[in-house]
C-alpha cells in the first residue's frame, strides 16, 4: 500500500447509476458521511460538508470541490482545504469513486489520497469523524424513513 493513500473496493448490488447518485448527491451524501452537505455533482462546483458536534459551536464546516463528475462511472472531489482557498494537492484530500458494472451490480473502488502532502493534521481531522461511523445503530432508523420516502415519491 502506498503510505498516505487509502484504497477500498466493495461490491454493491445496485446499478452504477444508483450508486453514482448515492456517492454524489447531497441528500444521499449526508446519509453516509456528513450531517449536512451542499454540493452539485458538476466538475468545478464548490460546496461544503458540515459535521455536527456537541456543543453546536464546535460543529465544523469543510469546503468540498468536485473534481470530476462523469455519471455513472466516476466521481471525485477534494475536501479539507480552508474556506476561500483553491483546492490543490497541498491543501486537501482527494476522494475518488470509480464505478464499474459487474454482473447485476457495481464494483466500487474508493481511494482517498493526500495525507502525505497535507500532513498529519488532516488525518487527525478525519479521525474525528470516526464517531460518525459508529454504525447502523444510528443510521438504520434514519434509512428506514428515507427509503420509505423514496418509494412513495
Amino acid at each position, binding site marked *: 500500500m502506498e*503510505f*498516505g493513500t*487509502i484504497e*477500498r473496493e*466493495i461490491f*454493491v*448490488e*445496485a*446499478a452504477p447509476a*444508483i*450508486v453514482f*447518485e*448515492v*456517492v454524489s448527491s447531497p441528500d*444521499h451524501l449526508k*446519509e*453516509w*458521511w456528513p450531517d449536512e452537505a451542499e454540493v452539485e455533482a458538476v466538475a468545478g462546483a464548490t460546496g461544503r460538508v458540515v459535521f455536527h458536534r456537541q456543543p453546536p459551536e464546535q460543529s465544523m464546516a469543510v469546503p468540498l470541490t468536485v473534481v470530476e463528475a462523469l455519471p455513472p462511472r466516476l466521481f471525485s472531489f477534494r475536501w479539507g482545504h480552508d474556506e476561500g482557498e483553491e483546492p490543490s494537492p497541498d491543501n486537501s484530500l482527494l476522494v475518488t469513486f470509480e464505478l464499474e458494472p459487474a454482473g447485476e451490480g*457495481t464494483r*466500487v473502488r*474508493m481511494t*482517498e489520497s493526500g*495525507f*502525505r*502532502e497535507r*500532513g*498529519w*493534521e488532516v*488525518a*487527525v481531522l*478525519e*479521525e474525528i*469523524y*470516526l464517531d*460518525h*461511523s459508529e*454504525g*447502523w445503530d444510528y*443510521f438504520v432508523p434514519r*434509512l428506514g424513513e*428515507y*427509503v420509505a420516502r*423514496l*418509494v412513495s415519491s
Partner: protein
Amino acid sequence: MTTAVDDELWSAIGEPTRRRMVDLLLAEGFGTATTLSEQLPVTRQAISKHLGVLDRVGLVHSTPAGRERRYQVDERQLARAAAQLADVGSAWDARLQRIKRIAEAIQRAQDNRQQEDKGE
C-alpha cells in the same frame, strides 16, 4: 502539542526515500548512512540528512559504530503512525458499508415498484 509531533511524524515517513530507508532498515535490522547509500540512488550526505529527520521524530534510534552511527527502526513509533492511518481506513469501511446499504435499498425499492407496475 501532540498534533505538531504527529504532523512531523507523518511528513517524516511520507517522503518516498525515507520510506525506502525504513524498509531497508526493517529488512536488515539495522544500517548506517554508508550501507543505506549503497542500496539507494542517493548520496551519503542526503541519506544522513534523511536519517536526521527520522531520528528527530523518533522513527529510528542510533548507536555509535566506529566512525559512523548505526540506525535501527523504532517499531513502536512506526506502529503508531500506521495505526492512525488504519483508523482513517476503518472510517471509510463504515462509510462504504452505508453507501452499499443505501444503494441496495434503492435498487430493491425500484425493482419492487417495477414488479407492481407489471401487476405482479
